[in-house]
């Protein structure tokens, strides 16, 4: 009887753990599926909140924090004035950048340094720079470049590196070192990498295909 009980208890426990990670994966997959098709501020808010809820419920998983950080950054980018003004918009950019950075720091504490983390780090600094390009170009711009270099060092075949690099080239005026031709090469490189890209799991970072498609259609 006693033995029977322990075997049973063990089996319940394993099912529970298994069910839990399955629950995580299921919840994450549903959100990750819309990452690439999403464009609206409201949807990014929804995603940012959802990933953060999962992250805070799990507490030991870096990926939910990673996605929560990414969603807050995309929310930040989407909230910036789209008139191309070079002035001080730090009151818009900084709260999102700060939030994304604190989530990213939690992700960093739960995993080893990897290329995806540095891509997000790059985006944090880029968002801050966009808050006031004239006065932050030298500081935040340099930090963004540094983070991207580190991402490349850790895994040069991560297509997202080239998307971020391509976006910089795409949006920066030519006088400041931007180049649509170079952007195109970078997006094509990302596209090529995606062709053979394999993720470790269904919830590992895999976003970016629609961005590549969008930018290539603009070039």
């Amino acid at each position, binding site marked *: 009887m006693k033995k029977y009980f322990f075997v*049973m208890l063990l089996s319940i426990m394993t099912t529970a753990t298994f069910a839990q990670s399955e629950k995580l994966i299921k919840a994450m997959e549903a959100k990750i599926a819309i990452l690439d098709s999403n464009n609206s501020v409201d949807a990014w808010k929804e995603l940012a909140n959802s990933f953060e809820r999962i992250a805070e419920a799990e507490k030991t998983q870096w990926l939910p924090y990673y996605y929560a950080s990414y969603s807050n950054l995309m929310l930040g980018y989407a909230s910036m004035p789209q008139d191309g*003004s070079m002035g001080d918009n730090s009151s818009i950019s900084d709260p999102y950048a700060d939030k994304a950075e604190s989530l990213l720091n939690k992700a960093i504490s739960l995993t080893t340094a990897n290329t995806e983390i540095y891509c997000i780090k790059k985006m944090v600094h880029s968002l801050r720079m966009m808050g006031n390009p004239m006065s932050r170009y030298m500081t935040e711009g340099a930090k963004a470049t540094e983070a991207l270099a580190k991402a490349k060092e850790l895994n040069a075949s991560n297509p997202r590196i080239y998307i971020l690099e391509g976006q910089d080239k795409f949006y920066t*005026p030519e006088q400041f*070192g931007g180049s649509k031709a170079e952007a195109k090469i970078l997006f094509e490189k990302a596209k090529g990498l995606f062709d053979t890209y394999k993720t470790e799991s269904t919830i590992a970072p895999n976003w970016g295909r629609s961005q590549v498609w969008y930018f290539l259609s603009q070039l």
Partner: protein
Amino acid sequence: MFRNLKQTKMNWYKKVPLVLLFATSFYWANGQITIKGVIKDNKQKPLSGVSISIKDSYDGATSDSTGSYSFKTTEKGEQLLVISSIGFKSFEQKIKLEGTTIVVDAVLKEEISELTAVVLSAGTFEASDRKRAAVVLDPIDIVTTASANGDITGALKTLPGAQQVGESEGLFVRGGTAAETKTFIDGTLVNNFFFSSVPNIAQFGRFSPFIFKGTVFSTGGYSALYGQALSSALILESIDLPDQSSANLGISVLSGSAGYQHLSKNKKSSFGASYSYTDLGLAFAVIKQKQDYSKAPAYHSGDANFRFKTSATGMLKYYGYFSSNKLGFTTNSIDSLGYLDKFAISNTNIYHNLAWKENLAKRWKINLGVSYTNNKDDISSGMQDNNKNDVVLGNLEFKQFNINTKGNYFNAKAVLEKKLKGLSAVRFGTEYNYSNDKLIYTDYNGQQYPSGLKENIKSIFGEADVYATNDLAIKGGLRFEHSSILDKANIAPRISVAYKLSKGSQASLAYGVFYQNPERRYLPSPNELTFMKATHYIAQYQKVANQQTFRTEIFYKKYDNLVKTGTTGFTDGAINNNGFGDAKGIEFFWRDKKTIKNFDYWISYSYLDTKRDFLNFPFAITPNFAAKHTASLVMKKFITPWKTQFNAAYNYASGRPYYNIQKDGLNYKFSDRGTIPDFNNVSFSINYLPAIGKKDAKSFAVYVLQVSNIFNIKQTFGYSYSYNGLRKEAIVPPSRMFVFIGAFISFGVDRSDEVINNSL
């Protein structure tokens, strides 16, 4: 009893399959509960994008544009509902999950943060990259303001409150003299901020604007942390660690400079040094000066610094500066036709500043600073005949003299701060200012008259910032000072209040009492003197919208105990503190970066009505350093395809009064009075930055062309009078127009290392 326990235990595990059955049944039965509600802010406006979640669960929702949310959960029993949004305080509520629907509405309170909180901005202009409403300038504005000539105070003169005084250096604020403005670097007083005075030629500040990351220019009502300035405090904060190691080189028509900054690999410490040599000889050969220079101004200056992080939050900074300069010139003498007045000065100045800041436990913070200055001036004055031979003329013997001064100054300051809830804080500390001035006056006979003056000013101060909400802030402070030379003490209260009227707009009030010792040249005095006193009343309205700032301020300043001069026995000097005066006015500031793309401009206007009776004034009059109307228009346009920034500035001041005061028996009287013509100045500069945007650029160059008074407008700053008062001569700038051309290149050492390593 033990038996009983065993029994229950047995019973419990007999029931296990049943428990399991129940548990699984919940999974399948989907006994879901709906949680819904509406989220608003404290102004009853619906909040969208708010996260609503059950703590430690996946279940939750995001509020929509009407602030409503609704979600279903399978969680059961007592749970914690967490409602949060960026910029708001999180709202938590215990809920009991039973039944089918639970309604939880919430009102979120704004988080008190620097970004959203009201700012105590009365009388304060800030140039920094901090995210505060008092910030009206970026640090880069200091160097890109066309009329500033790369000088910090030059840029501040385009803000309301400051006068366009061209014949002498310093900031003349709201009817105050230049001596009523004091400068502080990293908290401690700076004794010789400007190069030593030269008759009728305004001198520059000694320090490069590039060593500061933050500038706070107070035109009144400043904090109890600072004192000994009746009108204004200029508070400068030096830069922290550089972003990378770099070397820089500068070449211009006036000067050559080189410097190096090294950032350690772990990015926790840095050191650097620079040297520059400036010689105006070449420029003066091309641009004719009013003065005939026997020695064109030449300056050697060097500085050195180190900075290191003493902990994650602590930083120790040292800045050391040395300069040595000489100049000598003659001008046609107004006292005796056909003769020349000769003036020469050589100055050496050494300045050290050491500052340490650290966050301590329990939200305590400490700021310590010490500075030491050693300043030496050798001035010689006299007359020459047409062939430039020194002569001494009868009745004008007094024009032949030498003055040798040596000053040693030591300042120390300690401030402890305790952060309270939100942005509220209390601060208190102490300041010590020591000065030892020695002066030797040598008359035409070679007779020497040495004098000396030692002064110790000890102060203690405390202040509290109270942020009741994001919308209301109050700062109250008290400062106590004791001067050893006056053997007197004072207590100065300061208070300011700021209230947020709506998003981006706020109103502020400030009141304060400010004391200052009589200027050193009136000390020691055979007569008993006391502190001079000013009382400030300021009201401000400010509105900051996207890329636009509007500010207006009205003020009233009352002066008491100003120094009066006269004759005691046989010597002229300070006789008492019976002087008085007042200043009132209104000021406007408007900056707009939005209306025209890539075009940035600001306009400032000041109206000033001031009268004072001080020094040898026969009665209260508007002093010669106060113009009724002052205005500036500063424009900046960056043309991206050309990588070039164009800057222009127009400065205007209505005519200031001039007068000549002469002794009539025992009294002083005006022998001549009038108003100088209006002042107009248009300056223009171009900065060309070819490397901008090149990510892998190994060097970053800035080419500068600057022209001041581009339209060659005649400017008159006042009149100087012959000793007998019979002849007068306009005081004009040394040259009408001035042109500056230079190149400044910095090499990012780290960056080029990276490039090399990557290509290997």
